[in-house]
C-alpha cells in the first residue's frame, strides 16, 4: 500500500469514527475567583500612579480614569470619585526622585522622537524601570497611606507605577500575501519578510494597599508590548488603550470574580 493510500484510509477512518461518536457542543461560563480577598472593603480608591516614558500619553490620568470606569461596572466595590493624588509631588516631598542620568541621544530613542531632558515640572524624567525603583519606598510608607486611608474612610487603595515607552524592533515577520493564480482564483500564501517595526511597551505595577493600616496587601507587575508595521501610523493613545485592554481582565480578576465565556464538547 502506498503512503497516499494509507493517508486516505486513515482519513476515512477518522471521518467514520467522528461520524459514529456522539458529541454535543455546550456553552460554558467559567467563574474565576479573585486573587485577593476584598470582603473587608466596601470602597476602592484608585489613588494615582507614578508614570513615565512617552510624554504623548498621561499614563497616570488615563490609567486612573480607565480603572475607575472598569471597576464601576465590573466590581461590587464602590469607586471613590476623588482628584487623582499628585504622587510625584508627594514623592518629592518625601525626598524621592528618579536618579539624574544623561539623556540618550535622540537617534537612540524612537527615531527622532527627541524629548526634553527634564520632565515638564522640572523634575528628572522617568524613562525606565530603574528610574522607578526609588519610588518603592513611597508605596511602603505605611503612615502616608494610612493617613490617606483615614481621609477616604478606610478604602482599599490602588496605586503603583506605569511605564509607557516607545519601542522598536527589527526582525522577520510572517504575513499573508494575496495573489491570483492562472485561472483567476484568489490565493493566500504566508511570506516571511524582514521588517523594522515600531510600537510601545506598557509596564504597569499595581499596588493594593489596605487603607485602614497603610500596608501593602498585594502587588503585581505586567508587561505588554505592541509593534506596528512601518506603514501604520497609530497614535500613542490608541496603543496605550490597546495594551491596557489586554491587562484589564487580569487587574479586575485581582478584585472581583470574573466570568470567561466559551464552549466545550460533551461526549457520549
Amino acid at each position, binding site marked *: 500500500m502506498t503512503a497516499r493510500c494509507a493517508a486516505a484510509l486513515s482519513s476515512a477512518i477518522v471521518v467514520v469514527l467522528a461520524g459514529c*461518536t456522539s*458529541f*454535543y457542543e*455546550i456553552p*460554558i*461560563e*467559567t*467563574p*474565576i*475567583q479573585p*486573587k485577593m480577598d476584598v470582603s473587608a472593603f466596601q470602597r476602592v480608591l484608585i489613588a494615582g500612579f507614578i508614570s513615565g516614558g512617552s510624554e504623548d500619553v498621561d499614563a497616570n490620568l488615563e490609567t486612573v480614569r480607565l480603572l475607575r470606569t472598569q471597576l464601576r461596572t465590573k466590581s461590587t466595590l464602590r469607586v471613590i470619585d476623588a482628584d487623582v493624588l499628585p504622587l510625584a509631588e508627594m514623592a518629592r516631598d518625601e525626598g524621592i526622585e528618579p536618579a539624574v542620568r544623561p539623556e540618550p541621544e535622540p537617534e537612540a530613542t524612537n527615531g527622532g522622537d527627541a524629548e526634553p531632558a527634564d520632565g515638564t515640572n522640572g523634575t528628572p524624567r522617568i524613562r525606565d524601570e530603574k528610574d522607578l525603583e526609588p519610588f518603592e519606598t513611597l508605596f511602603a510608607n505605611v503612615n502616608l497611606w494610612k493617613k490617606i486611608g483615614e481621609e477616604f474612610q478606610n478604602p482599599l487603595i490602588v496605586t503603583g507605577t506605569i511605564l509607557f515607552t516607545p519601542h522598536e524592533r527589527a526582525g522577520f515577520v510572517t504575513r499573508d500575501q494575496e495573489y491570483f493564480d492562472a485561472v483567476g482564483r484568489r490565493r493566500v500564501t504566508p511570506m516571511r519578510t524582514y521588517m523594522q517595526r515600531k510600537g510601545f511597551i506598557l509596564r504597569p505595577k499595581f499596588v493594593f494597599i489596605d487603607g485602614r493600616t497603610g500596608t501593602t496587601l*498585594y*502587588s*503585581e*507587575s*505586567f508587561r505588554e508590548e505592541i509593534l506596528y508595521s512601518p506603514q501604520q501610523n497609530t497614535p500613542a493613545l490608541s496603543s496605550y488603550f490597546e495594551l491596557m485592554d489586554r491587562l484589564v*481582565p*487580569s487587574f479586575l*480578576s485581582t478584585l472581583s470574580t470574573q466570568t*470567561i465565556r*466559551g464552549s*466545550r*464538547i*460533551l*461526549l*457520549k
Partner: protein
Amino acid sequence: MFRTFGLVAVLLALASPALADARDDARAQVEFGIKVAQKGLWREAIYRWQRAIEIDPSYPAAYNNLAVAFEQEGNLEKAREAYEKATELDPNNIMIRQNFDLFREINDRTMRRGTQ
C-alpha cells in the same frame, strides 16, 4: 497449555457481558448527565458523570464531561485532573484534546498573575 487457554477463554466469555453491562450503565449515566447539563443543571450532571466513572473507571467521555462541568463550576484544579485522566484513557481523541487546550488557555491566563 490448552487447559490454561480454555480457562482464560471461559473467564473472558463470562467477564465480557459484565464489562459490556458496566459500559452500558455508565453510558446511560453519561447521556442523562448531558441532558441535564444542557438544561443548566450542572450539579446533577456532575453527580451523573461521577456515577458513570464509579461504574466504569475506564470511560474517557465521562472524565471529559466531568472536566467540562468542573470548569463551569470554577473548580479548575479538579477540571485539570479530569482532563488529564480523559487524555490518558483516550490520547488520540481530538475533541478531548481540543477541550483540554481551551481549558489550559483559560487556566494559564488566570495563573498569569504577573510578578508579585
